[in-house]
């Protein structure tokens, strides 16, 4: 007789994949719904605040990143209309021109200032001054949520 004692019956090793399509589509729907292109991807430490309201989606963005001591990069200011990726500007006049153009297109255009908390206030002041000169009305100062242990 060919039966060998002690040998187990072979169990087919299979990974159950029937629910994979459901999971994949669930993830796909999630990412489609939360999809938002970030017009400025400059990494920075935003200041923490208790007061935080949602910024408008199509607002123009002015980002101010501090000088990078390791990479030797100077303080950088970038601007974006809110629709295209941000571009660097080198003078305050360029910020005035950018903001004036945006305000001329839409007098109620909102501007987001995304600045690192370590940036000297002098630079933020120059940006605020440029926005005032451009007759901008609404400004948002981007921040992170402050927590009790901070």
């Amino acid at each position: 007789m060919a039966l060998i004692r002690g040998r187990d019956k072979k169990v087919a090793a299979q990974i159950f994949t029937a629910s994979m399509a459901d999971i994949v589509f669930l993830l796909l729907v999630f990412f489609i719904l939360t999809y938002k292109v970030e017009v400025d991807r400059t990494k920075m430490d935003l200041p923490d605040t208790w007061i935080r309201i949602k910024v408008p989606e199509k607002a123009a963005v002015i980002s101010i990143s501090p000088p990078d001591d390791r990479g030797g990069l100077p303080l950088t200011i970038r601007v974006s209309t809110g629709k295209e990726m941000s571009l660097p500007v080198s003078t305050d006049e360029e910020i005035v021109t950018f903001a004036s153009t945006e305000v001329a297109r839409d007098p109620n255009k909102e501007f987001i200032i995304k600045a690192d908390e370590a940036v000297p206030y002098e630079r933020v002041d120059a940006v605020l001054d440029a926005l005032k000169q451009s007759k901008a009305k609404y400004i948002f100062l981007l921040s992170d949520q402050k927590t009790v242990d901070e």
Partner: protein
Amino acid sequence: MNIKKKEIASEIFTGSMADISFLLIIYFMITSAFSADRGMDFALPEDTDTPEIKQEDSIDVHVLRGGAIEVDQKALPLEGLLPYTLEKLKQNPEKPVILRTDPDATYGDMIRVFDRLRQASSEWTDVDGQPLYKDVHGNPLLGIKTISIPTQREIENLWSMLGIQ
């Protein structure tokens, strides 16, 4: 004569569906970003409705280098800012707060003080939004009506108008 129709199996080929789905997931994962989308708002005054604010008619908050603050030329801890402002606004609720920042201070220093001033509306009301304090005329105090953030150029213009060097 009976002609038997050959049945054609109608199937949608789904073999590549998983590939397409994964490709789309990877695309959306990479291009989407959980960006910071909240912050503090403020409206800039329009030229037509900008009243001339004199320093003595207002509460002058000066953020110094290092983050310390002076309120009406007197050093004050950040915790004392709102109680001081409350006492001043009880006398005159229309008093604006002028937030000046030293050019050598950091943006974080200025935001810390601005955030504190903006908290007045929540600290001066109870959980139902009812005011906790009243001014001398018996009107409820719901927060600071005007917080002005003048730029360095505006401050210098004002000083030159007043003849201060």
